[in-house]
């Protein structure tokens, strides 16, 4: 077995394992139970896809996939921050609506 064959095997095994990680995170995304759980699952899916881009760069021999990984790391962070702020303000708004309803009665 030559070294490049071993690398090919390792990259294939890595693809399978990263797929498995995304599938497990997707299970948590579907199951929930709360909104922050889903945000955490989405964050992990983004990080796993960054690893996936590195594997794709080795497999195809084309470093352009690393640019995809770079953009994905930045956009994934923005998505996480936006969703976390949404989760926080969603609860605040619901509490305020509840208070307004109570003061009406």
């Amino acid at each position, binding site marked *: 077995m030559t*070294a*490049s064959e*071993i*690398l090919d*095997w*390792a*990259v294939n*095994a*890595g693809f*399978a*394992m*990263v797929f*498995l*990680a*995304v*599938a*497990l*995170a997707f*299970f*948590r995304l579907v199951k929930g139970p*709360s*909104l*922050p*759980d889903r*945000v*955490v*699952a989405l*964050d*992990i899916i983004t*990080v*796993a896809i*960054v*690893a996936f881009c*590195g*594997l794709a*760069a*080795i497999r195809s021999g084309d*470093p352009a996939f*690393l*640019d995809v*990984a*770079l953009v994905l*790391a*930045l956009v*994934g*962070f923005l998505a*996480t*921050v936006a*969703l*976390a*702020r949404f*989760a*926080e303000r*969603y*609860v*605040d708004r619901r509490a305020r609506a509840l*208070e307004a309803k109570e003061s009406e009665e």
Partner: protein
Amino acid sequence: MSTLIAAAFVLIGSLFSVAAGLGLVRLPDVFIRMHAGTKVGTLGSGLVLAGTAIHFADPAVVLRTIVIVFFLLTTAPIGAHMIGRAALRSGVPAWGKDKTNGELRRLKAGRR
């Protein structure tokens, strides 16, 4: 030789990615699950990208992987902090006998 080292990095990194996914499914509450996501996930991706850098052994590629890992390392704690604060403030129940969350909710109710 460098090919074998790259293969080892890729394999170990993918194993850590699976550990992150398993932790996300198996751990008991949001605050503990975030550890799986931010620490293990970042380590797995970082190792795979290190393997990519060793495989290409080209200054442009190495610089790009360093930048990606730098961004992952700086953004993961900030994102985790924001999700954790959102979870705590929205009253997601903590696992076990920890009553911190209920206490916080009572404090907020008193302040209003």
